[in-house]
């Protein structure tokens, strides 16, 4: 029994860090579900909104010595304002324009962090950021519990949205925008609103990630984060709130926790071939799932299943 316990939890620091990453991807995936799966906004700049929050939090804590809660508020606001501006830009654009605009916003965030060295530390980095409390050896575990709580809250909110009149408005906007417009639904305001709200959430998640890594670098904001989030959501099911959770378990959970911790790979393989193989599999998953099972593992949203059932009767 003790041997099994040691095997599973023998490297608690690695396990906790892997779970942090998993929770971060799940949280971002739930928010992307509201944008892409429900409202039909293809946000390809997730890393930018998350990074804006991460750096806003870091700058407040390190450069201006602000406390945890105000810093987290600024991180949320940074994501929200960026989302508001992006929402305003993309509200009239087609899918190609949305791709270009969201990618451009993420690139601007990256370039701004890289160029404004006096405030962000540039490539040298920004730190150190500590946990807002100290409970000894269990501090990282307590932070993980908080992260679980935040992600749980996001999941609860996403499920509520599906059942609310607001959710119906989002679904109408995402499913058939011209029809929603002709029915006098405030499509533009809806898109701007959902972008602002969900990007604020991404900013907040970025802020919560600060104490985990302690030190911030622009290289943490690569497109790999966006790819991980999109892969998890697409694999799990982009139309379902739980889709990101299922997808993240099968991708990040498998690669960043299960294989890294429990498969004895040689160090050289772990450093080079493993991350490269992981990205190849993520890319292949995106292609195969969207070609052969476009709604992912969990399939259609419940509302559509219900409507289909009624139409059969």
């Amino acid at each position, binding site marked *: 029994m003790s041997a099994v316990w040691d095997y599973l939890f023998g490297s608690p620091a690695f396990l906790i860090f892997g779970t942090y990453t998993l929770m971060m991807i799940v949280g971002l995936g739930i928010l992307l579900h509201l944008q*892409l799966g429900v409202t*039909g906004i*293809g946000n*390809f700049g997730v890393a930018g909104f998350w990074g804006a929050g991460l750096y806003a939090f870091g700058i407040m804590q390190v450069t201006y010595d602000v406390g945890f809660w105000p810093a987290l508020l600024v991180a949320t606001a940074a994501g929200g304002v960026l989302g508001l501006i992006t929402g*305003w*830009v993309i509200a*009239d*654009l*087609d*899918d*190609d*324009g949305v*791709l*270009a*605009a969201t*990618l*451009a*916003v993420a*690139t*601007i965030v990256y*370039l*701004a962090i*890289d*160029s404004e060295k006096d405030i962000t530390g540039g490539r040298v980095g920004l730190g150190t950021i500590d946990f807002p409390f100290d409970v000894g050896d269990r501090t990282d575990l307590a932070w993980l519990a908080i992260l679980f709580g935040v992600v749980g809250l996001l999941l609860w909110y996403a499920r509520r949205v599906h059942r609310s009149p607001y959710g119906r408005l989002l679904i109408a906007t995402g499913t058939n925008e011209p029809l929603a417009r002709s029915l006098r639904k405030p499509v533009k305001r809806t898109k701007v609103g959902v972008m602002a709200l969900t990007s604020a959430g991404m900013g907040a998640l970025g802020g919560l990630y600060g104490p985990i890594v302690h030190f911030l670098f622009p290289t943490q904001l690569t*497109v790999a984060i966006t*790819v991980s989030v*999109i*892969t998890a959501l*697409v694999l799990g099911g982009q139309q379902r709130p739980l889709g990101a959770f299922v997808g993240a378990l099968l991708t990040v959970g498998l690669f960043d926790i299960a294989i890294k911790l429990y498969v004895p790979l040689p160090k050289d393989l772990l450093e*080079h*071939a493993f991350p*490269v*193989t992981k*990205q*190849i599999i*993520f*890319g*292949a*998953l*995106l*292609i195969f799932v*969207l*070609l052969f099972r*476009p709604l992912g593992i969990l399939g259609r949203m419940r509302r559509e299943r219900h409507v289909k059932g009624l139409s059969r009767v």
Partner: protein
Amino acid sequence: MDFVAKAVIIGLTEQAPLVLAAMGMALIYNLSKVINVAFAETITLGAYFAQWVNVAFGASFYLSLAISGILAGVLSCVTYLLVFRTAERRGVGPVEVIIISLGLSVLLRYALQFVFGYEARFFETPPPTFMKLFGVGFTSFQLTAFILVVVLALLFYLFVQKTVWGRQVRALASDADLAKVSGINPLLTTLIMWFLAGAAGGLAGAFWGVGSSAKPGLGWDRFLLTLLVVLVGGARGLRGVILAGMGTGVLLSALKLEIAPLRAEIVLLVVFILVLKLRGNRFRELAKV
């Protein structure tokens, strides 16, 4: 005057491959209505193919350039047949096609590291001679690259606008059903277009690669700018793409002469976002009429 001359010369010599890449992407966009994110990897692989032929076989840069264009064109056709045609047949939506192309881009970018290695790879070319025009220095190689890009861009333009094949491509792009009824072979025409697009991307990649090195992120780093040039200039056809590409190069170099390079890139992206925003509104106003 001095400032304008500098901006124009630097902009055109440094960003000439951008015009070529944007023309390639625009060909696919106009015909298939697909924004192919994996086009970034066609650019990257163009650089790798040229470097491989140049170093492994001791070929001159210009020979390796031609071979890399052909190989990148073939790769482009293969991706169409295996991925995009399947997506087309299965009726995959536009956002999903973009995500599929993102997946393909990630797959190719990392798979090529298993083939060519993780490190950047350098070309073996003779040292260039340095020249000056209006007080602006540039290498003989940059000048040759610029002239070649202008000639190739012109050839692409003439092919699409003036030849029978080009007319078939445009006919298929504007009305696929009518084109089929007129006896145009859609698969062959589409493949020709994807080949040309891939070749243009590969050549652009080779030009960029020889200026620095062939590395996995080469195409991705230039993808956004290429995409923005296509979206902004594409509304006015290939001529618009060429003008937008050249304008982007000149504007970027002008900005870099005045402010720090990274800030210049930020300003350029903001300008593009505003143009996209204005373009979207204008189309909606037109639609109302």
